[in-house]
């Protein structure tokens, strides 16, 4: 045998996509084409549904007709059962896309009287396959034969032949089997079907059930080996790989306002990055939801769509409470920009939460998703699972470039910077709200613990809830350190008083100077007046004197004229100049 040739054949193993969300991702393409696959699991874990969805998706999406050979449920029952999942089997059967055959095995009706084989089953199967050109076959569940046919030797030999025959036919087959005690299946079907074995599980932990899927074996192919949670809802099966998305989402440089001006200022004045994940954590009653509500309102005002998951309050209660701090959310709900989804975390398992989130997000196509709060999940499930679930939500939202805001309640006795869910590493911007106890008073403080990709403020701001929303105050920074609350108010009042006093003093001084100036001016005025009167007196005297002088001169002249004497003229005395 040529080794390399066979190796190449294995590497190029063809796969038939199942069309089941997530399953094809973990198996790298689906089930092995032309080979039988064993699906095993306990009662009610979804084996039949897996098979049926494989057929329905094959028929509708991949143009591969399929056969279901049911040993347990009648055709009517099956059709009804899967109709609730949105599969219209009747239509598919009518269009010859799917053939259903119910094989009834009744022990009481069967009496063995000698040698026999199961050629009848082969013939029926072959007939069904040929009638619609089936590429896919589901046998659900062939183990019923063990109950019906007493001779196990013949049965086992025939099963071996059946699976070989299926391979020869080249159909991709699913064989379901009930889980056994120590074996994968009760009747050890894995002995015959060894190309691909998938285990389904339905576990209940802490009263919450979780379905899980694991690829136990996949000959000739790599596959995810983990247990993957899956769920069954009205759209059928979905397997949710933990990290199927990887870390290759494209990032945005755009910024989105937090709705609180001062908070934006702390984040380079622009707010969060679009598509980033924001965590608001803090102890009880520090205003986490208020920050979320601000963000939601601001987004709605910009015309963006917001999806708000609340796990603790009903939407009405939340809206009422936010109204008290002046945030009106109701108009946005009516406009259809804001959608609330309120569920108790314990309502269903984490996977269901995850799937519901996926579904609603895909339907609503929001720009912003708020989860308030995330750590209530911890109560209902294990921390690790919560973390992986949140990781998947973060991944999912990031891949859609949706800005996510989570709130998280930190309990008093743990370190504040240790978020309960341990998701800090997933978070891009982490706002921490804390209470600051100072002089028998509890005040709220907020700071940016981290914010990837921006030079954020390192200041602790005082955080105040007012009737017009959240206000961030500059913390008083003085010689004695930061002060908050009434201490800050008192300090500020003290400073204000001092300032006022100084102002008063200045006023006083100003007034005094004015008064002095006025007094001086009035003195000057009286002096002027005195002087003026003296001056006029003097002028009068001078005039009189001059008149006298003139008179004397005139007299002299007249005397001279009378004596006929010649006299030189004297210049008059300039009184003004000499003054």
């Amino acid at each position, binding site marked *: 045998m040529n080794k390399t040739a066979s190796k190449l054949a294995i590497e190029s193993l063809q796969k038939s996509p199942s069309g089941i969300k997530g399953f094809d991702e973990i198996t790298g393409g689906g089930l092995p084409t032309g080979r039988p696959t064993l699906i095993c699991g306990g009662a009610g874990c979804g084996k039949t549904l897996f098979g049926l969805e494989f057929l329905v998706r094959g028929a509708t999406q991949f143009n591969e007709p399929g056969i279901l050979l049911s040993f347990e449920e009648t055709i009517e029952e099956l059709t009804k059962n899967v109709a609730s999942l949105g599969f219209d089997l009747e239509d598919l059967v009518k269009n010859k896309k799917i053939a259903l055959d119910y094989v009834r095995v009744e022990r009481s009706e069967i009496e063995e009287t000698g040698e026999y084989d199961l050629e009848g089953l082969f013939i029926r199967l072959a007939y069904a396959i040929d009638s619609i050109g089936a590429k896919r076959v589901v046998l659900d569940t062939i183990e019923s034969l063990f109950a019906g*046919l007493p001779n196990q030797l013949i049965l086992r030999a025939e099963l071996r032949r059946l699976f070989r025959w299926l391979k020869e036919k080249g159909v991709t087959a699913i064989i379901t089997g009930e889980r056994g005690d120590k074996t994968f299946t009760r009747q050890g079907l894995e002995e015959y079907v060894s190309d691909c074995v998938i285990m389904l599980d339905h576990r209940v932990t802490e009263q919450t059930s979780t379905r899980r899927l694991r690829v136990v074996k996949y000959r000739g192919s790599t596959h995810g080996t983990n247990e993957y949670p899956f769920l069954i809802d009205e759209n059928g099966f979905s397997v949710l790989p933990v990290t199927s998305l990887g870390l290759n989402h494209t990032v945005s440089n755009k910024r989105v306002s937090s709705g609180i001006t001062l908070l934006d200022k702390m984040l380079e004045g622009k707010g969060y990055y679009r598509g980033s994940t924001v965590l608001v954590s803090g102890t009880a009653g520090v205003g986490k939801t208020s920050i979320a509500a601000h963000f939601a309102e601001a987004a709605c005002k910009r015309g963006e769509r917001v999806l708000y998951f609340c796990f603790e309050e009903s939407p009405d209660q939340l809206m009422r409470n936010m109204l008290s701090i002046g945030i009106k959310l109701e108009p946005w709900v009516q406009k259809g920009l804001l959608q609330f989804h309120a569920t108790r975390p314990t309502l269903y398992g984490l996977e269901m939460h995850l799937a519901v989130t996926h579904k609603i997000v895909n339907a609503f196509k929001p720009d912003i998703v708020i989860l308030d709060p995330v750590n209530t999940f911890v109560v209902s499930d294990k921390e690790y699972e919560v973390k992986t679930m949140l990781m998947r939500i973060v991944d999912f939202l990031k891949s859609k470039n949706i800005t996510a805001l989570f709130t998280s309640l930190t309990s008093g006795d743990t370190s504040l910077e240790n978020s309960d869910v341990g998701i800090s590493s997933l978070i891009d911007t982490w706002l921490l709200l804390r209470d600051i106890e100072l002089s028998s008073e509890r005040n709220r403080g907020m700071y940016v613990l981290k914010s990837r990709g921006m030079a954020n403020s390192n200041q602790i701001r005082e955080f105040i809830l007012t009737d017009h929303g959240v206000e961030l105050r500059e913390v008083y920074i003085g010689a004695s350190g930061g002060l908050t609350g009434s201490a800050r108010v008192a300090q500020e009042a003290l400073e204000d008083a001092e300032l006022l006093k100084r102002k008063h003093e200045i006023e006083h001084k100003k007034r005094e100077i004015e008064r002095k100036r006025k007094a001086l001016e009035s003195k000057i005025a009286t002096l002027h007046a005195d002087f003026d009167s003296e001056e006029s007196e003097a002028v009068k005297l001078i005039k009189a004197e001059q008149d006298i002088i003139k008179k004397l001169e005139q007299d002299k002249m007249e005397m001279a004229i009378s004596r006929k004497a010649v006299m030189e003229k004297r210049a008059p005395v300039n009184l003004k100049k000499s003054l």
Partner: protein
Amino acid sequence: MRAKEVNSEMISKKGNPDKSADDKWVLRLYVAGESPKALTAYANLKKICQEQLKGRYSIEIIDLLENPQLGAEYQILALPTLVRKLPVPVRKIIGDLSNTERVLVGLDILPKN
């Protein structure tokens, strides 16, 4: 229905005093081609009928290789399968009918134990 009627003997003569006159047995043998098992089964069936139901039976042989769609009616899985259509209720026995006693029990000719 293109069932191959290999043998159909209808004899109205009363043979067994326990059964009423109109008590006829309609048997159908499902086989897949002329395999050794099918031939053995047919031979065994003929023999048992001759011995137990003389003149009150009819045998219809259906070859599923030729008419595969006929297998569904009586939920045929194992081959050969013998179906007692009449008298009701319908009974099915599988195998080549070599264990005569079990055949008689299975066909309700002999009471169980």
